[in-house]
């Protein structure tokens, strides 16, 4: 697919969000409430155990705050958008154009993230940083690495959501699957609790899955919990997963789209 066309799809993703911008002003409040709730939960836990999960209390507050701030950016809805496009037959609109279905959705997700960064993440970060004692990144270099890891997060979420959305081709109702994926992602990305507090088998399993690279890895980089060789390894793993998931998604879609049925009209 031509880069100019990809860019246009991103722009459409951005513009589409713009049509509903009001929704995002309330989003700031939602994120603030989430961080507040977790702040008090962790405060109670740290009152009993001052050095939990290898993080100090200020580090944990930072973890929670940054975790939600970056989630406000990498999160997208393309799985449910795709599912409704497929179930309502609107997918034909993309299939009639000389573009890759997968890349058009991924590009749209990137556009959405750009929108979220400006209209949701930035104000959320300002408000949260003003209220809670959020620590600065470990160093400027760590912050740079953190941003690079975040770029991978966007593609990880987008490519996973594309795969989940594709399943709508053979499912009549996809809501359950979307829900399951949503909570699996919230939990395993380390958004709710750091991956390090998982009990042993779950922690090992999580290490074999791509989810923890969405949130946990960037945050560990931000907090300076990873050495530079470890950061290098984490990058390699993250981008391996991105390439793998995009490759798998392309194959999966090629397989499923043969079975697509678009009724009516």
């Amino acid at each position, binding site marked *: 697919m031509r880069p100019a066309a990809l860019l*246009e799809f991103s722009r459409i993703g951005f513009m589409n969000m713009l049509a509903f911008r009001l929704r995002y002003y309330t989003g700031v409040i939602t994120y603030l409430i989430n961080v507040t709730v977790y702040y008090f939960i962790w405060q109670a836990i740290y009152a009993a155990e001052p050095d939990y999960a290898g993080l100090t209390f200020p580090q944990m507050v930072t973890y929670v705050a940054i975790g939600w701030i970056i989630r406000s950016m990498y999160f997208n809805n393309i799985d449910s958008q795709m599912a409704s496009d497929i179930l309502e037959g609107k997918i034909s609109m993309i299939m009639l154009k000389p573009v890759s279905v997968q890349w058009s959705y991924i590009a749209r997700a990137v556009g959405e993230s750009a929108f979220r960064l400006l209209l949701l993440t930035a104000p959320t970060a300002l408000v949260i940083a003003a209220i809670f004692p959020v620590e600065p990144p470990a160093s400027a270099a760590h912050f740079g690495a953190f941003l690079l890891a975040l770029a991978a997060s966007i593609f990880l979420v987008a490519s996973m959501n594309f795969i989940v959305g594709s399943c709508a081709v053979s499912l009549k109702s996809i809501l359950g699957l979307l829900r399951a994926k949503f909570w699996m992602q919230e939990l395993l990305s380390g958004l709710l609790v750091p991956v390090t507090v998982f009990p042993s088998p779950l922690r090992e399993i999580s290490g074999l899955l791509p989810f923890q690279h969405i949130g946990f890895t960037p945050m560990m980089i931000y907090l300076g919990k990873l050495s530079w060789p470890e950061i290098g390894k984490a990058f390699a793993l993250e981008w391996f997963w991105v390439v793998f998931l995009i490759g798998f998604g392309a194959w999966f879609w090629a397989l499923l789209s043969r079975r697509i049925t678009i009724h009516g009209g």
Partner: protein
Amino acid sequence: MPGIVEVEDLVKEFRAFERREGLLGALADLFSRQYRTVRAVDRISFEIRPGEMVGYIGPNGAGKSTTIKMLTGILVASGGTIRANGYIPWKERTKYASTIGVVFGQRTQLWWDIAVVESFQLLRKIYNVSESDYKTRMKRFDEILELGRYLHTPVRKLSLGERMRCDVAAALLHSPPLVFLDEPTIGLDIVAKEHIRQFLKDVNHHSGTTILLTTHDLSDIEELCPRLMIIDHGRLLFDGGLKELKRLFWRDSALKVDLKDREEADRLGALELDGVEKQRLDDMSYRLRFPRDQWTAAGVIRRVVNAAEVRDIVIEEQSIEEVVKRIYLGEMFQESRP
């Protein structure tokens, strides 16, 4: 000249899940499902030459849209082949897609929440249309379709007629040699219909664009398409010109006869005319329907005039609607398949 579209033995089957009745049936469905194979398109073959305008008609559920979806590469055929613009649509979808234009009347191809012009800009980039081509084409589209007034409105706020004009323009923005339109005039008022028809004529005439369109409005066919194909139950029933259709299926003619008074009408009613179906319309008039292989209009008129005093006779041309309606009803195909 080789066909721009070549379709051979095209088949599409869907597997439909059959639900059993009642609670027990629903429970049984959980464990073993019964499927029924539905053949939506049944061994269709045809060829379209460059520059042709072809109407593709059939009653609801006949398989028109399914054929169009295979022709445009959205659906994969269960059997048979399609070659269009040199591609097998569903195998080389992205390459093929840049050489065709598609309008689905029931479903917009534009982005719902953003202004029309933004969609056009996106299409321009997708199809790699140069800025100057874009400008000249938009100007021409605007002349016939009058898009200018609502280019900056989001699609969801447009009326159906406005939306359809934008959709048709969008499908032709990259000047494709082959265009498919699935019910482009559905639900439109006369003015909007006229705009669309005029535009399609213009495109076909000036750019030699090959057009295949489905419709329920036969005046679309009469105005646009020298050739039509009729499909029902997935099978192609007729493929030829309008004139040929009439010649083949216009088997009866009708005369409307007004008589001088009631007495004369009764006299005509008593007249013996073998094979002519007489229908009394009111006190003083009759409709006489006669098979064209047995009678000529002149022959019937001569007999009628000799028998009763006639005030007026009108020869009723059978409309294309009438012919097609009877084909849909399955009246004329057992013995007269062309």
